[in-house]
């Protein structure tokens, strides 16, 4: 069993909540920021590798750093899960499993190269046996006690408002672009199969697909910022 790192309710819960459509800047920041930061600047301004060091040291700052580290890597871990799994519950379990493994490794000082903590997280993703993810549900039930992590690992549900926005934006795409997106991502068909259905070449399907997703992104970006 993995003992979940503890956090206090007063700590910044926003870091593990994904921004609407992911368009807001992430909490992590570009490389190249000086290690020595003025005391007035919070832990939020540190690099992920510095958060790992704080996690290893423990204490209130360590707990806060855990939340920040989780927030900084959550979308990457979820993106990996999304690529390799289709079921939303399994993706939730995957994100929880990898994040807990990462935090436990950070607390115990097992991350040798802290400057490459993101690569370490990818390693956990790759080493996770996707078929045995259900075990991690047990970890959630047994080990996650803090309010913060319970919220972070709560099962996700489709956001109805977001789905309505998506539907409105899908309505603006031409029929072929819309069908390519639906066949590709909703039904999981590959470019060759879609090409057969829509009388296109596979190459054409790929072009239509990435342009359609870009138009959808731009439409939703407009909705999110309006």
């Amino acid at each position: 069993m993995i003992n979940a790192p503890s956090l206090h309710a007063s700590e910044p819960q926003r870091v593990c909540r994904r921004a609407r459509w992911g368009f807001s800047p992430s909490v992590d920041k570009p490389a190249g920021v000086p290690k020595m930061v003025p005391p007035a600047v919070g832990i939020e301004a540190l690099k992920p590798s510095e958060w790992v060091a704080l996690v290893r040291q423990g204490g209130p700052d360590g707990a806060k750093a855990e939340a920040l580290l989780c927030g900084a890597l959550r979308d990457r871990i979820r993106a990996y899960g999304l690529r390799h799994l289709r079921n939303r519950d399994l993706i939730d379990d995957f994100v929880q499993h990898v994040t807990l493994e990462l935090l436990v490794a950070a607390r115990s000082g097992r991350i040798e190269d802290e400057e490459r903590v993101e690569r370490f997280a990818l390693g956990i993703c790759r080493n996770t046996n996707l078929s045995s993810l259900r075990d991690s549900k047990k970890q959630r039930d047994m080990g996650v006690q803090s309010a913060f992590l319970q919220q972070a690992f709560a099962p996700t549900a489709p956001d109805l408002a977001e789905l309505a926005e998506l539907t409105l934006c899908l309505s603006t795409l031409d029929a072929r672009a819309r069908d390519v997106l639906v066949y590709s991502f909703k039904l999981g068909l590959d470019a060759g199969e879609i090409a057969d259905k829509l009388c296109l070449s596979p190459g054409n399907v790929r072009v239509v697909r990435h342009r359609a997703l870009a138009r959808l992104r731009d439409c939703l970006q407009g909705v999110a910022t309006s």
Partner: protein
Amino acid sequence: MTEERNVTSFCSTPIEWSKLVAYFAGELEPTEESQVEEHYFECSNCSRVAAVASRLVEALREAMPPVLNEDLFLAFRDSGALTRIVEVDPEGTVLLPFETPADVLVCELRGDFTGRSLVDLELSSDRQTGRIVGAPVSADGSTIRLVCMTAFAERFGREVHLVVRPEGKHNESLAGYQLDHEVR
């Protein structure tokens, strides 16, 4: 190009949008797929672009398209994704009862759309207006299949007026319908 716009200057070798989309579609070779994963894990700028693409893909898995062609209608019906199918004649009113937030209703708009493969649907209510472009017409020219979901119903409100227009036309009308959403 529009699709490259989100790539920032912080990364000297940003992942191309088209490659990222192919990644989430599962169509990259294993080596290339590994390279993409290593890149977006280690590059905070590309991770943001990947997060946007990933959210879009995840939402597309959950969402339903606003209108269905025959093939998609059969696929969704046979997979049990559709809660109810209701029909409405031209100038008629149809009650669309939603029992749960997850309900997906298909409204079959009947009419004479012979000779047209695509039409546009214009929706209006006291809350919102919207246009669905390129709605497919059934092969026999008699039906358009509109998908109705709770999220959409809540956005538009109870009474929605729908006008079928020839593709790309904004004034000419082929048929009109009244949709009466009932969200419980």
